[in-house]
């Protein structure tokens, strides 16, 4: 391949902008075979691949790309699955530009390899052909493990432990398993069919998935132990929405991003009244925040028929925490970015519905603890925005129920569970934790990485316990 050609990544087709802002179908269409082969061709097959160091679960990147080159797509997918049990998900939602692709050597002189797109290609191929479930009959059952929460962390631990021969029961409080993948990330970024295929896969492996079970209410952690579980993994995520604490936040038309996204994604509010759950969207929507959650809320608003949608963020473009690709998609679709602005007050009409938002302009000062320049309000720069829907997407903290109802489970002052990073073990014997409930809101792949660690930690613990008997 000539040098000049190697510099440029193969673009991925997307749904036409004017079309897609009116539907919930997937925006990024994925590579076709020809595109995938051309992109795979660019990979240098580095003997010392730096890309792998950038992946939190160390997907054998050059190896699976080689298999794509050889047109053995099924083998490519299985190769990824040796390390990553949710490749169709990660290929779509990983912030690759900060992970594997950031480290790819090709990035120095041009575009890095589009590792995520290739990962998606291989695993979509496998999903289409029908997923093969490994035969686990022979594995001897050793321990009985309860998993609390069915997000990427819980799904990973469940899959790994059942493969190691343990009996696994997964408890999920919602009516569908998948965590944020089901209730948070919208259909147009991650089709729910794909998530359910992953959930079905772990069911086929033999995991007993119990939805509608809220641990801390129906059973406490200690009651689960009394019911015969040897170990428990807590992967309950960071689902508690934060609010700004400003005047008018409880007005009608003011949603937490979680409420908004649960209504839209999990309950399919965009199909109301065919589906029963309503969602009300106004003409002018302000979404507060700059992360993936904010981008998703803004893009859903647009698709629900809002005329103007604003992202109101208190720092500048550079600091936007959202995936670059998603911020670009949002901008392309016509979302208006109001950067360096911070809301100070919400104003309601006579019926208690929001009709305006007062904001103050910000400027960037000295760097703060996170290393980012701290936004400071500019005195006297308040102004009024005309809005009739406000979605608050300024972050989530861990669901507090388990921490509140479990003695001996230590947490930080942010409510995250304290664990030993090498094993995932909490301060309470036989209780392990990982994912957003430990790290605070992070990424799918880091939750899965934590799940891998905890699965091994639990396996060791059970073997030691049973061995010493």
């Amino acid at each position, binding site marked *: 391949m000539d040098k000049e050609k190697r510099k440029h990544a193969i673009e991925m087709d997307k749904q036409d902008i004017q079309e897609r802002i009116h539907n919930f179908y997937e925006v990024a269409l994925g590579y076709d075979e020809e595109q995938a082969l051309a992109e795979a061709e660019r990979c240098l097959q580095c003997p010392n691949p730096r890309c792998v160091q950038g992946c939190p679960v160390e997907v054998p990147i050059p190896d699976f790309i080689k298999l794509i080159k050889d047109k053995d797509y099924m083998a490519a997918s299985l190769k990824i699955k040796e390390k990553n049990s949710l490749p169709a998900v990660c290929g779509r939602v990983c912030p690759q530009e900060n992970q594997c692709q950031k480290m790819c050597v090709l990035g120095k002189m041009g575009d890095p390899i589009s590792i995520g797109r290739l990962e998606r290609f291989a695993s979509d191929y496998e999903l289409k052909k029908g997923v093969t479930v490994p035969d686990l009959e022979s594995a001897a059952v050793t321990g009985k493990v309860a998993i609390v929460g069915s997000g990427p962390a819980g799904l990973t631990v469940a899959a790994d432990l059942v493969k190691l021969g343990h009996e696994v029961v997964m408890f999920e*409080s*919602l*009516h569908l398993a998948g965590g944020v993948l089901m*209730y948070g990330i919208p259909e147009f970024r991650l089709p729910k069919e794909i998530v359910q295929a992953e959930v079905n896969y772990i069911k086929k492996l033999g995991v007993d998935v119990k*939805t*509608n*079970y*809220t641990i801390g*209410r*129906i*059973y406490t952690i200690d009651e689960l132990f009394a019911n015969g579980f040897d170990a428990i993994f807590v992967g309950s995520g960071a*689902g*508690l*929405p934060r*609010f700004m604490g400003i005047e008018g*936040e*409880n007005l*009608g*038309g003011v*949603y*937490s991003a*979680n*409420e908004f996204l*649960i*209504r839209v994604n999990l*309950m*399919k509010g965009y*199909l*109301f*009244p*065919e*589906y*029963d*759950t*309503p969602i*009300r969207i106004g003409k002018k929507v302000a979404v507060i925040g700059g992360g993936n959650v904010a981008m998703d809320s803004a893009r859903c608003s647009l698709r629900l028929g809002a005329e103007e949608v604003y992202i109101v963020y208190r720092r500048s473009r550079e600091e936007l925490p959202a995936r670059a690709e998603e911020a670009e998609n949002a901008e392309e679709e016509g979302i208006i970015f109001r950067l360096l602005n911070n809301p100070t007050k919400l104003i309601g009409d006579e*019926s*208690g519905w929001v009709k305006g938002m007062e904001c103050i302009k910000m400027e960037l000062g000295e760097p703060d603890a996170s290393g980012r320049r701290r936004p400071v309000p500019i005195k006297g720069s308040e102004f009024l925005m005309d809005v009739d829907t406000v979605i608050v997407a300024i972050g989530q903290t861990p*669901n*507090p*129920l388990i921490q509140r109802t479990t003695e001996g489970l230590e947490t930080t002052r942010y409510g995250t569970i304290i664990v030993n990073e090498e094993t995932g073990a909490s301060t309470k014997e036989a209780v392990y934790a990982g994912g957003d409930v430990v790290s605070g809101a992070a990424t799918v792949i880091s939750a899965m990485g934590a799940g891998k660690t905890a699965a091994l930690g639990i396996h060791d613990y059970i073997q030691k316990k049973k061995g010493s008997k």
Partner: protein
Amino acid sequence: MYEIVTKKELAPNIYLIELDAADIAKKSNPGQFVIIRLDEKGERVPLTIAGVDLNKGTVSTAFHAVGRTTKKLAKMKAGDSITDLSGPLGNPAEVGKFGQVLLVGGGVWCAPLHYVAEALRKNGNKLYIAVAGRTRNDMVYENELKAVADQFFVATDDGSKGNQGLDFLADVLKAQKFDHAVVMGPVSTLKKVVELTRPYGLKTMVTLASLMVDGTGMCGACRVTVAGETKFACMDGPEFNGLDVDFDELISRQRVYLPEERMASMIYDKLEGGVKRG
């Protein structure tokens, strides 16, 4: 799937169903609720637990057929099943030993109030119970509540039975010192009773039916202002001291989806010939 084991009409448009859910029955306490979802397209709807039968492994709940979900449920029969049932959710009601306790129930809420009353009685409290309904035909659990009451009162909106409205409670409160009060009913009833108990500083526990989605603390749809602080009814409640509740905000937040609810209900009525609102 969760089977409807029995179904009974308690009053026009008000039904009691018993659902097969042994795991939930074992862990339920008075004041807690379940969330039901009828089918794949269904909404998550909270209903308060009205009692359990540990031998049969069932949970019962009473509901008023007012909107799309409850009207659909009203059409279902014993033997039919609903797709999802989650619970118990929320915190149990306070049922300790207080002494003299005033209980007020309105409409469909008299059924779950009975579950609370039984527990309060078991703990040695003396119960003054008032039940309210729209008319004499709309009374729910009247006999059941009477059976656990030391003093019993009836009220109707139109005066067709017992007292007209709840104003008579002012006299009851004047004549008798209470140590605790519990009110379950529509917000208007909660607000009314709290107005009457406020002069006595009587701790008046009310169950708040704010809008809910997940019921597990993840969405904040259920947020209410209690003593000046934002609380999540599903996590911190649903029972709160009514003296501290901002009822006007609650009422305005409850009405957020009224147009959509009306539309869904109308579509349902058109398609299914739904139950007429009493």
